[in-house]
């Protein structure tokens, strides 16, 4: 069930109606049933469900066992408060902690193991095969990759790590945990939610209220607008451009900008729909985007784009690695031997390198993604190293606060990120380097005026729609950037009227139905 399919919309409407009709106590169980039904429709053999239930059960028991350790240790410490010395207490605490650590480790290895085996087995086989002679090549294995496994596995791991860290108690009701793992709007493409963020609203009893419905609906329609009017329209041109290497030189530049626009509309649109659906159900999800294309540098970009993934990697991989014993030792050693300046950075960069390698790998089992991740690392590192230079520059020329300089920085960041993203597009890494290279060596500006752009599978009318949609999206984003919100809540007439207009625009100008293939959201694949 694609978000854009009539089936899904019917499913959603039925679910929302039921949700507000059933006794309030039955609301979250209904969501669980709905989520499992949604997942079952994605694969009617039921294999997907088996995977997600396995993950849920493992996290449930790991959580409960850690809860028990906690209860036992606090009871023990309380009972023996008088008799235990400080050292005894410390030793006892350490013992308990290592017990929890063992539980955590088993659970993480199990779940990351499932993820790795399903997603990366064939990648490993292919890589091994490049070293083998033809006769001894390994056969790829037909592997089930459950939809959204990268998302729900990460979400579940985050949950179990937070229980270990004592951020919150484990969920004692297995069905409630199952809902957290499988909540259908975010199952396929995130956001990767934290249990502590969702728990408050996920299991609560929700009364129907106007602002939830109207704001949720606005969000959903805005998402459909971006997905159906822009992403599913421009995709034809992007596919044409990237599937034929004859489209080199300036065409690559066009493909780069088109893909940047497509991915933005596809991914943020999908997340808008997700957050909007949750909102209609009275559930608050963390934002996953904060106007990413207004970022002035790549670091800021990663604070604004796919935020829940970024913070996940920071909290659960970057920090633990950085503050681990060996890393602290390395940091100390390098500062002693390489000098304060360089030494300070060695460990940070090493952790960062690991994070970006994993981020790339998480996006897909292909070298393209790994190189994409590493490119991000390289750019971040370079810009970090250039910072003193920038500071000098800004000390000399007072442009930092000038509006045009801000625009320049924004455009620069968009170009840089879009260029790195070309690794998504081309078949393999060498080809990407080659094609992106031609962008600079084979400049051919004629294609903008001689009608070549009309041969990419989209018509003049499509271009008009894309330009208008671009202006609308840019305006809305600019308003939001400047004042933090788009609509004044009191102006409901304006809000509802715009909602109606949006609906008509989607129906008429959406790229769906005959002549268009219904396309998956790009992030469904990860």
């Amino acid at each position, binding site marked *: 069930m694609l978000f854009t399919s009539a089936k899904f919309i019917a499913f959603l409407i039925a679910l929302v109606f039921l949700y507000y009709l059933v006794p309030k106590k039955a609301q979250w169980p209904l969501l669980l049933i709905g989520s499992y039904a949604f997942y079952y429709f994605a694969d009617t053999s039921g294999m997907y469900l088996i995977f997600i239930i396995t993950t849920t059960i493992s996290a449930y028991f790991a959580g409960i066992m850690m809860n028990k350790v906690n209860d036992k240790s606090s009871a023990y410490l309380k009972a023996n408060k008088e008799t235990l010395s400080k050292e005894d207490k*410390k030793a006892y605490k350490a013992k308990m902690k290592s017990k929890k650590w063992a539980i955590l480790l088993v659970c993480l290895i199990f779940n990351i193991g499932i993820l790795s085996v399903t997603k990366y087995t064939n990648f490993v086989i292919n890589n091994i095969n490049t070293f083998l002679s033809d006769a001894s090549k390994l056969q790829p294995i037909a592997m089930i990759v459950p939809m959204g496994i990268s998302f729900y596995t990460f979400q579940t791991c985050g949950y179990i790590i937070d229980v*270990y860290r004592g*951020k919150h108690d484990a969920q004692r009701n297995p069905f409630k945990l199952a809902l957290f793992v499988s909540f259908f709007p975010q199952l396929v493409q995130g956001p990767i939610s934290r249990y502590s963020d969702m728990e408050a609203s996920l299991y609560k009893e929700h009364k129907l209220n106007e602002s939830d419905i109207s704001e949720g609906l606005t969000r959903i329609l805005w998402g459909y607008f971006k997905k159906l009017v822009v992403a599913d329209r421009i995709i034809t041109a992007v596919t044409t451009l990237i599937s034929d290497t004859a489209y080199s030189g300036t065409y690559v530049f066009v493909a780069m900008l088109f893909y940047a626009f497509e991915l933005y509309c596809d991914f943020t649109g999908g997340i808008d729909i997700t957050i909007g659906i949750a909102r209609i159900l009275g559930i608050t999800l963390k934002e996953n985007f904060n106007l990413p294309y207004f970022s002035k540098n790549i670091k800021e970009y990663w*604070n604004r784009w796919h935020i829940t993934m970024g913070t996940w990697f920071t909290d659960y991989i*970057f920090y633990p690695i950085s*503050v681990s*014993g060996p890393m*602290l030792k390395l940091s100390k050693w390098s500062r002693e031997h390489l000098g304060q300046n360089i030494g*300070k950075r060695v460990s*940070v960069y090493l952790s960062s390198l690991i994070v970006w390698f994993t981020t790339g790998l998480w996006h897909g089992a292909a070298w393209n993604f790994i190189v994409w991740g590493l490119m991000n690392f390289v750019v971040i590192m370079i810009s970090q190293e250039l910072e003193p230079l920038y500071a000098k520059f800004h000390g000399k020329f007072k442009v930092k606060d000038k509006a045009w300089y801000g625009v320049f920085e924004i455009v620069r960041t968009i170009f840089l990120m879009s260029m790195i993203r070309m690794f998504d597009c081309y078949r393999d890494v060498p080809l990407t380097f080659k094609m992106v290279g031609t962008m600079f060596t084979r400049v051919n500006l004629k294609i903008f005026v001689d009608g070549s752009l009309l041969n990419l599978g989209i018509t003049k009318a499509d271009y008009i729609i894309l330009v208008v949609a671009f202006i609308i999206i840019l305006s809305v984003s600019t308003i939001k950037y400047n004042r933090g919100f788009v609509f004044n809540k009191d102006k409901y007439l304006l809000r509802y009227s715009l909602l109606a207009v949006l609906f008509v625009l989607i129906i008429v100008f959406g790229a769906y139905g005959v002549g268009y293939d219904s396309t998956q959201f790009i992030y469904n694949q990860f």
Partner: protein
Amino acid sequence: MDALIEILTNLHPEVDFDTCETLVDDKIIDSFDIVSIISEVNEEYDVVIPAEEIIPENFNSAKALYALIKKLEDEE
């Protein structure tokens, strides 16, 4: 406390760490800074700030961070 302020000021000379209480929330320090701080604190005070303590509340101000260090020292 002075030693901590010195560590912080070395990272961001332009910030007044005595008064600022939104270091993380306002994105004045980022994850790279936090890791640098932790490794220097480790040397200066000989405490390891574990990953679970890396939350905005502990890093939003020099004061909060100092309190964390004291607490960790205490547990040692």
